[in-house]
């Protein structure tokens, strides 16, 4: 897809070494790279350069990445991939809830970064959600409300179906616990974590080949879940 190659990427990080590394790698893969070292600069670059995706570091000297996300989300749906360090779960959740699309924990491999960027670009390019989702053996047809594994229908409860649909509609994107609870149960169920856990567990038992080592529904510890769309 041409949307991937030649896409414009804004890299926001205050560390020159990381910016240089990202520029080198991304340019080599055919992306056009812009850079910003500060939050305010990032915001003005987003409006001036209209990038296709933003790679945003959470720890910036002037304003933190969560704030940048909020400001950008006021007028732009440009996909945002957050860069964070291990242990910064609270910040990650805040950024995701503020509208960021994905996150990567430093240090990360180039392959992983490129894969996440591809997902983000695809999501950014998509205008309406596809009614039929297929990934490996899993197939979901929202027009018929049918989920199959290897073509065999899987009986799901309405809640499990809604949960899977929420994941599928944002396939590849991390959905926080909060976002999932709202999408499936609605406002007011934000604290009912156990319902989410139980339903995820049941859903996995029905669609995963090995529930102990989930393949489709990936747990992001302390943050939420994601539906895997890239092996």
């Amino acid at each position, binding site marked *: 897809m041409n949307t991937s190659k030649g896409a414009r990427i804004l890299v926001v990080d205050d560390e020159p070494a990381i910016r240089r590394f990202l520029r080198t790698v991304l340019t080599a893969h055919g992306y056009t790279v812009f850079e910003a070292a500060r939050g305010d600069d990032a915001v003005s670059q987003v409006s001036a350069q209209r990038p296709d995706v933003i790679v945003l570091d959470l720890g910036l000297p002037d304003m933190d990445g969560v704030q940048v996300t909020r400001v950008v989300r006021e007028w732009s749906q440009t996909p945002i991939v957050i860069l964070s360090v291990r242990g910064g779960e609270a910040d990650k959740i805040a950024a995701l809830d503020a509208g960021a699309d994905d996150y990567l924990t430093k*240090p990360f491999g180039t392959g992983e970064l490129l894969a996440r960027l591809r997902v983000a670009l695809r999501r950014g390019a998509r205008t309406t959600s596809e009614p039929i989702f297929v990934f490996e053996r899993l197939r979901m047809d929202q027009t018929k409300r049918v989920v199959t594994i290897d073509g065999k229908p899987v009986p799901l409860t309405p809640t499990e179906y809604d949960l899977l649909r929420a994941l599928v509609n944002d396939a590849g994107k991390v959905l926080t616990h909060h976002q999932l609870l709202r999408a499936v149960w609605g406002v007011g169920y934000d604290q009912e974590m156990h319902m989410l856990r139980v339903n995820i567990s049941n859903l996995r038992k029905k669609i995963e080949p090995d529930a102990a080592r989930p393949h489709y529904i990936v747990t992001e510890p302390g943050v939420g879940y994601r539906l895997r769309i890239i092996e």
Partner: protein
Amino acid sequence: MSTRPDPDALLARVTAETPERKRGKLKIFLGYAAGVGKTYAMLGAARQRKAQGVDVIVGYVETHGRAETDVLLNGLETLPRKTIEYRGVTLSDMDLDGVLARKPQLALVDELAHTNAEGMRHPKRVQDVLELLDAGIDVYTTLNIQHLESLNDVVAQITGVIVRETLPDSILDAADEIELVDLPPDELLQRLREGKIYVPEQAQRALQKFFRQGNLTALREMALRRAAMRVDDQMRDYMQMRAIPGPWAAAERLLVAVSPSAFGEKLVRRARHLADELNAQWFVVYVETQEKLKLSPSQADQLARTMRLAEELGAQTQTLAADQVTTAVIEFARARNITTIIAGKPARPRWLAFFRESVVDELIRASGDISVYIIHAEPDRRAKPARVEWMPRRPFLRYVMAVILVGLAIGASALLSPILHLTNVVMVFLLAVVLAAVYLGRGPAVVTSLLSVLAFDFFLVPPLLTFAVSDTQYILTFAALLVVGLVISQLTARMRERADAAREREQENATLYSLSRDLAVAADVNDILRALETNAVTMFGRQVMVLLANGSRKQLELVGKQAGAIDDNERAVAAWAYEHNQPAGRDTDTLPAAQMRFIPLRTVNGVIGVIGVAPSDSKSHLSPSQRRLFDTFASLAATALERARLSEEAQQAQTIKATEDLQNALLNSISHDLRTPLVSITGALSSLQEDDGTLSSATRQALIENAREETERLNRLVGNLLDMSRLEAGAMRLVRETSDIQDAIGSALEQLDRRLQGRQVKVDVADDVPLVWMDFSLIVQVLVNLIDNALKYSPRYTAIEIRARAQSNQIQVQVMDRGPGIPSKDLPHVFDKFYRVQHPDMVRGTGMGLVICKGIIQAHGGTITAENRLGGGTLITFTLPLKA
């Protein structure tokens, strides 16, 4: 023997001179009576010093309106006096703080023996002067000879005027210079007649009595002698210091043996005279025998007064514990080369000497070549001790009881007299006397004996119901009954007093014991304070407060629960007590108007703070024995607090040591672990960089793969280090949420996906395992660490098993491998910091993984254990409670 200067004495003199530089110099203008011109002389000398450029101020000078003196005041800076409203009267005295703040080189302070107005810091002006000297300010002052403590009696004898304001003689010795201001008595009387001497109206008569030729001559002689003695001393000191041989007076050494009686003070004063005249060194000892251990409170107080007076008069005092007074005194005298022993004449009836030799008699017999001076004196008029009121409660009732007792005896003897001979019936009365002595005390017992004799005569001896006696042999019975009765009452009463004293002492000991026991078990300062507070309430019925000096030493901080319950005035008193290392406040010599009494907490390392006792109301004072008890209380408190402080310091040192050890181990371990991956990475990268095409693509791939693995290892290590430091700092905060342990296991395996590389992993989570309230990310990390260990330490072809089970109130998770297991000697240590099991040919760990696991599990309230599996391999089990 004494012709050569004693090296110790020389040294003492040298050390005495050196610090004196810092202390102010004291010059006393000594006169023998008011009006001889002391103030005039002092002002004259001060003007001279001022002319030499010395910074002189007038702290307090009373000119009594004498014109010639007033003139001298002109041109000298006079500090305003401090005035205090006291019961509607405005009193003024020297402003001590003003002088201290002004810090002149020389301060003039008139009338050294003056008693300050109530409300000033010190009750006595001499204390003000000492404080000025301590502050490094030179002081000129004036003093009349009759104010000297040791001359007090003599002056009273000669002039008939009792001088109330007295000063310890040591002040004269402490003076660096003494200037005698002399005026022949005739001229003094002339001046008095001319009205040149200020005489207050009310004291007119007394002074007229005082200003008599004979009195003045005697006083003048005393003043002259005192000054001469001082010059003599200085001369002797000088000669000795310069090793000038001279006709040394034979070194007389006096020893005064004192008893707890009021007579002791008199004895000490007389001894001081003798010592002065002989220029002798003198000692005062009190021998504490088993018997005398039980002193009544007033006796103990009297003894303390005597000893203090002796110290004030310049004696060396000592209390000796011994079985026998005489032997102890003689032994002490021999050891110190005493030439003369001074003792008081025993004031007791002569007939008693018949039964028991007095201490003085024994002394004289045992003294050998040591002279013994016996001094006679009636007990001191001024210091008459309060009579020991034995059994003070309702004494009247006791006498009534005595009469009833005699009545009962009469009844009993009336019943017995038909059966027994009359002389045996007397025994009934003796029994009454004994009962009275035991239960009612000395007075009632004496009354009982007297009444018994009378009653016996009246009711039992024929002719009955008269006091007449028909048979003269009954006179002997009467006499025997009386004497035996009196002796029994005396002896029994004394025994009882002793028992009472013993009981009192025992109680004191018991309270002190309970305090010291409480203090001994107190682990820290707070415990000690609690012990002090509760014990103070039981011992004194009042509150104590402890103020401890903080690091900067100047600031006193109130510790304990009554923080803030002390006002600024009391705090100032406490600060004074602390800075001067002396008791202050209520019932002391300093700031006695204060509410609380403060005692410095002295330890071997100096004063660490003060302890204050607050009275229950403003009227109540501590009794002398309570004060003594409080002193002991304070010293126990000081020791305990010092101990707590030291142990705290020791603990801190230990913690620092442990931290250092840890840091060293960490550095050793980390530097190795950090460098190893860097070596591989740098090596791989530089090979690739310098490659000119010779490396095969497989080699290049291998290098890259290796570098990448090593970076991951490095990343794990840094992650572990961060977790470790968070654990160490106690900053590991749990973010708990309802979590599925199966999900956590899955996440851990997902994270280890790369490293698993097709290893067989068996996950067995029972269906009944409930959701757990836990920090999901941290438990994932525990699982990652455990599974990673299992991977590292077991062969590739073996499976790794993970099992989760529900238990009554917890879940149990086990991670098992089929590796070599853990040597049993290492099992107890695997969760210790930086402990590494030595596996030959195995991957080295960092010694942090399991420690972090343990930290995380313990933070959850769970447990983690390691054991060896049956059939080989390691089994790590951890539990997590279901309810936090």
